[in-house]
């Protein structure tokens, strides 16, 4: 039996539809290796946008809400309330349920009410919808109270201590990917390629131009990878980015820490692809048509 907290996890579907009108669609799938068949995790039909893996659970941001898969109970538990939906990004914070979320209505945190339900409080109050719409969220471990938010209008920083927002100089473009790597912060944009920053406020172009939007970023340890509108690019963040693999709308990317050179990427549409030789050859895996999440095996 696979363990979603330590094995491959894919959020995707075999059909184009979200599942609402066609209850055989989306869900989370797991496999021990990329050669094994993927099996559906439970019987949820959620369309995942982001999965945060923690020691005892997967926290799943999805189209119609927020869920967790509890490792000890092997079941889904609802984490959203009537104010939370379309969850695009997640990060861990202290407490219970211990999450901050990014969604189309902003960012929010939660507490447990007397019935044990998570009740969400939104922290985004900009009058400009594009500044509220949060595509991505990243908390730099070095600055746990400074939450980096990738919005439709650029990167903003939310201070969790004094609840203040600060605009960065990366603005005027949607930001859908954020991460920490190599001692820096990185952001992927719709029309300006990839940028890096030391403080989240001031951003510098990273490497050469990239065609199309950047949807996800990942550091293998030896290469930076970006999932883009027109496929996967790899580089070091200084020189040019090099295209690798099929020209797909690639939504997510990761690498297997146990097997150097093994990368996996999801595409929507296009399904799940992987390489075992650092991008020399790519091949499809699984039965997916749409993939928005892929997590490599790891022990947390």
């Amino acid at each position, binding site marked *: 039996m696979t363990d979603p907290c330590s094995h491959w996890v894919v959020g995707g579907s075999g059909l184009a539809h979200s599942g609402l*009108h066609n209850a055989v669609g989306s869900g989370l799938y797991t496999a021990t290796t990329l050669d094994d068949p993927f099996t559906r995790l*439970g019987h949820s039909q959620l369309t995942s946008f982001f999965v945060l893996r923690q020691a005892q659970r997967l926290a799943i941001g999805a189209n*119609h809400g927020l869920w967790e898969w509890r490792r000890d109970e092997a*079941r889904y538990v609802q984490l959203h309330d009537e104010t939370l939906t379309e969850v695009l990004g997640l990060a861990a914070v202290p407490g219970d349920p211990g999450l901050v979320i990014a969604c189309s209505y902003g960012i929010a945190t939660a507490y447990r009410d007397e019935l044990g339900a998570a009740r969400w409080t939104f922290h985004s109050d900009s009058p400009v919808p594009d500044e*509220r*719409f949060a595509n991505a969220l990243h908390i730099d471990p070095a600055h746990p109270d400074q939450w980096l938010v990738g919005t439709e209008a650029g990167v903003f920083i939310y201070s969790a201590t004094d609840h203040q927002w600060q605009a960065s100089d990366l603005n005027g473009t949607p930001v859908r990917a954020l991460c920490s790597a190599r001692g820096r912060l990185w952001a992927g944009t719709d029309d300006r390629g990839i940028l890096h920053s030391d403080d989240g406020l001031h951003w510098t172009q990273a490497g050469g131009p990239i065609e199309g939007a950047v949807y996800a970023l990942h550091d293998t340890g030896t290469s930076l990878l970006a999932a883009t509108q027109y496929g996967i690019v790899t580089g070091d963040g200084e020189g040019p980015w090099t295209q690798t693999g099929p020209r797909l*709308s690639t939504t997510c990317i990761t690498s297997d820490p146990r097997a150097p050179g093994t990368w996996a990427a999801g595409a929507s549409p296009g399904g799940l692809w992987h390489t075992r030789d650092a991008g020399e050859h790519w091949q499809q895996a699984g039965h997916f048509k749409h993939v928005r999440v892929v997590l490599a095996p790891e022990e947390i």
Partner: protein
Amino acid sequence: MDQQTYNTQVDARAQQMLAAICERTTDYSHWNVHALMMLDPDPEEVTRTVRRTLWRGTEAPATELMGGPFEILPAALAYCRWQDALTDEGRLLLHDYLTGAHFERGNTENHWLMYYTGLLLACEQFPDSDFTWNGLSPQALAAEAKRWILGTIERTARLGHHEYDSTHYHVEHMVAYVGLYEHSQDEHLRAQCEKKLSILVADMALEYFKGAWAGGHSREGYRRNTWTHSGAVQPLNYLYFGDIDFNPQIHGGSFDTPILVATYRPPALLAEIALDNSKAHIVKKTRAPRNIYRHAEHDPYPVRKYTYMSRSFALGSTQLGLPINTLAGPIDIGSWDLGWDAPNHQGKIVCNHPYRGAGRFSAFLSGFPQNIGRAIGLDKPYLQRPDRLFGASPYERMLQHEGSIVVLYRIPEDDEAPFVNLFLPNGYAWQEKNGWILGDLGDCYAGIFPIGPYAWQDIREDEGGIYMVHGGSLIDGWLLRLNSLHTGLVLETIEADEVDSFDTFCQQRAARAPDLSQWPDRQRVTCETTTGHSLDITYDGEHRVDGALLDYDAYRLYESPNAEADLNTGKMTFEREGKKVELDFGIDPEKPLIPMRVIG
């Protein structure tokens, strides 16, 4: 008409509709199985229906099943109404499904309403069960459902309905609130639901025109907005108003069936309002702002509707309240149309810019803007057809006064659809004079002045057509393609008995050309009506009638001879000939509203 007489009439129509459902149905759905249980109870058939529709013919345990709003609500309604009549197996199946299957909420107001209604009823029925699919207790789930349902009712009472006046989805709201009114164990919730039902029926009644729903609609999709009688609301039109011929194929058998077996009856006064076409009048409504979450510089303003209910025609329009420069185009909007009583395809005039830009969907859905247009178009190709006659365009503006309207478009050069579609019925002998297209529609006359060049085409689409279109069951008429980026039209309709003859109307109308001297350069068009009024519209600017500046912000929640209500009060009055229905939702206007997280 007194309430008892009205109730008796509705009872009779409900029985007629239920009988027609049973007569033509062999395989019942989880919606219309109520008809069978009402007229010829067969609990074994309910069990078979549940197996077939909810289990989809499998032997899987309920915990492996899935569903959504369209499953959880009918399953809950079937259990609540018929539990005493069902077999043990039937009760157990519904219990297992409602507590074990994994349910999705969806993303529209009708989705969430049906989901939360079904969930609440299930939690009330099974308070000690483990809702295994969800992990939260039934008490926690019920509390969430009540917060959303009561909060949404309050939003409607203060701001106007969100998924407003939808010819298609209105019935899905009605069936949920009827279910709560009939079955919920919460007395306060039931009382609020009864008032909400009065609003929903009043919304129908105020713009009811001889079997049709006049005016603007938040959602009138499925390419049927050129039909004389359009949408799944038709069974309710027949049930509650009853002035149209019964058609067993149209009037009943789907989402409406649980309503047919319910005891809920609207106030008789609302039917009287609906059926009174004796005097021309104006209906103004404010509706909740559209829910745009990106591609906008600010949040949308409230929707303002203006509908002229004349004796033989109805002309309605919408100030949609979208931010200037937004990319958003609410996908199923019917922003304006002219309707009159005529055979299908012969009673509507409407135009539309078939906006196809990426923002059309990604302003309301969270998929990537770069490919969401194609993704949605795969599931619902009718939403991206170039001949589309419904669906909002961010480049449309309009001004209406009584039976006249000016509709303007300023379409960007790089738009995928550099034109506007104008639908005209093909059953009339149209005339042309001085640029006006003039039609004798029977009891009324219409003149249309297309702005700029146009090409006269036909449009004919058949619902079942795969290879050849031999008929036009879906759309059948003339399509005038208004072929310029800065286009639009002026339209005037008047009652036939208010002018000497059609020829006189043609002469009067053709003698007054719209003043296009400031269009498009100064974005302004003015025109005079044959009845002596002047309309003056500046695109993204002032709207004037007879020189007076219009103030849409002054619109109340309801304003008509039969309805009045101020915004944010939760109080409203519907009246006719001295009789009144007064509603008071008991809201605290200082209390924050529940956020609207769904589209509609």
